[in-house]
């Protein structure tokens, strides 16, 4: 139960509404302000985020005019591009500019939020008025004046994206496309999706924090489709980092494409998967999405603060096997899930969530930290200025164990070997999760044998972490997109591991 809960209860809702309406505040505002939006103007050359600190101070004071516990202002500008290559043709090039700013007020368990896409002090004042609607009970709160705040950075850039000609981006895509088609004549098509962006953020809050930074991000996706006349398989490989164009020196476009093509060809021989409970060995890497879904989401503090999450009240308890240690770490250099500081300004850090099977803590943001009386862990993230921050993962992984991957396989008589996954989801209240295999094989007598068609694996989060009985020494990661009403860039990682008994959705008995 949240610590502010009882306070909020003291004021009956009718009373609350009356006060709100008597205050003269009507929040359902004007119909679409078309004419106003179009006539609004500011010189395009002036970077939208250059608002001076005194203005931001005034906005934060205005946001707390009716009371409240916390207020922040978030300014954002994003330049993005995406190039799509399909069937050996550059089908489209997309370029986007998006900017806006939002004001948030937290009062007890309540959050008020409003944003504008035309960043002026006047518009932010109006947003502050709307956001302050949730705080009507107390007297005005005086915020701390903002000042430059220091944070460590975990993102380094050698070749800034702004300096890369589009022809070089296209060159990388061509190389991937050629490598995929050259891999095997049965590769019928490659789909290459290149995107990058630079997101600039300014964060200022009533505790006196002021931060500004720029995060570049590259996302390079290769999908290949094989077709041998009777079977077809679409596979996908991705690389992504917060970095400059030097990403392609760490991993070449050819190697990404060949990995995708290899899976497309290997799975042409896939046969029907068996159905029912069986043992599963998961290869190291993006398979960590299992843990991201099954355990990561339920450890985000929002449903814990609501008192309904699957891990509510379990801190300090043994929830998993001794071999299981799970970490969320927003500081891994240049990783896709790395953020320097979260979108509320909290320094990113390494958070051990489960240590040798014992639950150590949750991932929090400002609101849930207050509600649960826990420290902020640097997990308050938002897709853009159009959303409020919520607790999210960054780079989430299982710590390596002692077992050699080949021994884990050899020690498994019968089951499924999962080499790649499409993705999955979880109900973080009930803890029921699912994920879908893309490349998987039968295990027979400790050996990986025949490929099987994409099957769904399902289970409960509390069950699965009590069934992991072997963890390899070969930790690896994969990049992904996490959706929770808004999207966030993350990585998931794991060593090779074995789950004893999970339900497999095959099409034969």
């Amino acid at each position, binding site marked *: 139960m949240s610590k502010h809960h009882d306070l909020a209860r003291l004021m009956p809702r009718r009373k609350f509404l009356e006060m709100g309406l008597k205050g003269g505040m009507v929040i359902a505002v004007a119909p679409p302000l078309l004419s106003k939006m179009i006539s609004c103007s500011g010189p395009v050359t002036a970077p939208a985020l250059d608002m001076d600190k005194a203005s931001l101070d005034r906005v934060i004071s205005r946001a707390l005019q009716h009371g409240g516990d916390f207020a922040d202002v978030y300014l954002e500008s994003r330049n993005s591009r995406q190039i799509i290559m399909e069937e050996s043709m550059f089908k489209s090039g997309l370029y986007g500019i998006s900017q806006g700013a939002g004001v948030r007020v937290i009062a007890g368990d309540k959050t008020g939020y409003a944003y504008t896409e035309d960043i002026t002090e006047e518009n932010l004042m109006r947003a502050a008025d709307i956001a302050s609607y949730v705080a009507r009970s107390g007297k005005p709160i005086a915020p701390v004046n903002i000042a430059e705040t220091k944070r460590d950075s975990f993102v380094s850039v050698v070749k800034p994206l702004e300096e890369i000609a589009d022809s070089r981006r296209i060159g990388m895509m061509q190389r991937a496309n050629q490598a995929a088609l050259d891999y095997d004549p049965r590769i019928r098509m490659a789909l290459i999706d290149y995107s990058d962006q630079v997101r600039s953020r300014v964060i200022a809050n009533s505790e006196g924090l002021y931060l500004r930074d720029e995060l570049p991000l590259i996302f390079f996706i290769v999908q290949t489709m094989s077709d041998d006349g009777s079977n077809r398989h679409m596979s996908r490989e991705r690389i992504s980092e917060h970095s400059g164009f030097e990403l392609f020196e760490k991993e070449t476009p050819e190697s990404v494409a060949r990995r995708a093509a290899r899976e497309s060809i290997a799975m042409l021989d896939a046969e029907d998967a068996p159905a029912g409970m069986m043992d599963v060995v998961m290869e190291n890497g993006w398979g960590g999405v299992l843990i991201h879904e099954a355990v990561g989401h339920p450890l985000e503090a929002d449903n814990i603060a609501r008192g309904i999450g699957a891990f509510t009240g379990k801190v300090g308890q043994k929830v998993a096997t001794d071999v299981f240690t799970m970490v969320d770490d927003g500081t891994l250099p240049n990783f896709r899930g790395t953020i320097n500081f979260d979108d509320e300004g909290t320094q990113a850090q390494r958070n051990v969530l489960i240590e040798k099977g014992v639950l150590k803590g949750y991932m929090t943001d400002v609101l849930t930290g207050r509600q649960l009386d826990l420290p902020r862990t640097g997990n308050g993230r938002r897709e853009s200025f159009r959303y409020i921050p919520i607790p999210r993962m960054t780079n989430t992984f299982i710590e390596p164990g002692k077992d050699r991957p080949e021994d884990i396989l050899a020690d498994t008589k019968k089951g499924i070997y999962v080499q790649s996954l499409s993705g999955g989801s979880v109900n973080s209240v009930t803890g029921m999760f699912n994920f879908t295999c893309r490349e998987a094989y039968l295990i027979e007598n400790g050996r990986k044998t025949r490929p099987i068609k994409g099957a769904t694996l399902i289970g409960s989060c509390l069950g699965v972490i009590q069934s992991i009985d072997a963890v390899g020494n070969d930790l690896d990661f994969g990049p992904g997109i996490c959706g929770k009403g808004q999207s966030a860039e993350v990585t998931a990682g794991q060593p090779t591991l074995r789950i004893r008994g999970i339900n497999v*959705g095959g099409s034969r008995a």
Partner: protein
Amino acid sequence: MNVHDLAERLVRRGLRFGADDVEIYVQTSRNLSVRVRNADIETIQEAASGGVGFRVLVNGSMGFSHCNDFNEKALDETMKKAIAFARLTTPDEFNALPGNLPHHDVEGLYDPSIAGIDTGKKIDMALELEELTMQDARVTHSSGASFGEWESEMVIANSHGLLKSYRSSSCSVGVSVVAQKGDQRNTGGRSTSRRFFADLEPLDEVAAEAAKRAWEMLDPQMVRTQRAPVIYDPRVARSLIGGIISAINGDRVNQGASFLQDSLNEPFASELLTIVDDATRARGLGSKPFDGEGMPAFKRTLVEQGVLKGFLHNTYSAKRAGTESTGNASRGGFTRLPGIGTHNLYAEPGQHTPEQIIANTQRGLLLTGVTGYGINAVNGNYSGGASGFWIENGQIAHPVQGLTIAGSARDILQGIDMMGNDVDMSLSFTAPTFRIREMQIGGA
């Protein structure tokens, strides 16, 4: 300056900057969202936003850009980015913008009254819905209730003289609750969405359904792995029907990446299955006078008694397939290129009540929850997580959780042997209850 003038001016500007063809897509919108929990406000969010998408063709190549800054200089620079991109992409003879064909207006897309309704009343609705749901003693916790509203105006103009616009609105109210019993927790939720505020379903009915969905799944029992009939409740119809829609997407068919690409005019499914896409239904949540690039949108039968009648096309995919656009260009706002999508899609109702279908099932699964990706449109594989109720002797015996179901899409769709009469036509993607003769079920 009004938005029509702005769109036309930007088309002319794009041509002057060197584009051969220009499409301008302007969207402005306003939304309010309120979330309450435990009889108090949890969040209130409100915003107005808008922007412009530029699609240009240069020597047969396409470029696209978007911007949410209406400053003249910003618009010009964004347009130039699209043109610069078009000089980099590959010429494609099928790149084209549609001509200016007449369309029919659809009645009831916009409720002008929503914005004027007092916000206190909207908050109150969410509070009342939560209170009604929590009155059921079997419900133990609230996950929250919400009210949301959205209204938008979009304008499309292109260099073929097309200039069209419409306004639309929607609003919704919903609730999600938990039923806890010992260590077991189960969630249930229900919402109602409509174009018009006055059309929202009665709160007591929404509340009763949400509460029931939470407690009715408590005390599940496991069943063994077996083959048995599976009855699809309307709320999980999308996991199958969605796979058909994905497989008849014209782009996918053109690329040879659909399990239905060679099935035109063939009976690929049971003759009990007829699927219709209707853009013209008054007040329909998926209705529109024209599609995402300005082509008139229609009512069209996609599957007739199990026979595939046609694919879904936008202007590009149609030209490549050597046919006409079917008015199925979708558009995820001004930041996105046109894709392909449906309007109000429904499977036609059959003869049986859901109760008759259950009574006619000796032993099997009534499926009310699925997880996973549904049908793989490339190869027709189907596998998912399953929950619902186990049927013995034509009666519901107990809830089931943690099962899996799987098969090949063709076998499953051919295997539809009973079609219900209970289709809810207020939804934009809907089907009645139907039964599959036999599927593989994974359990203990």
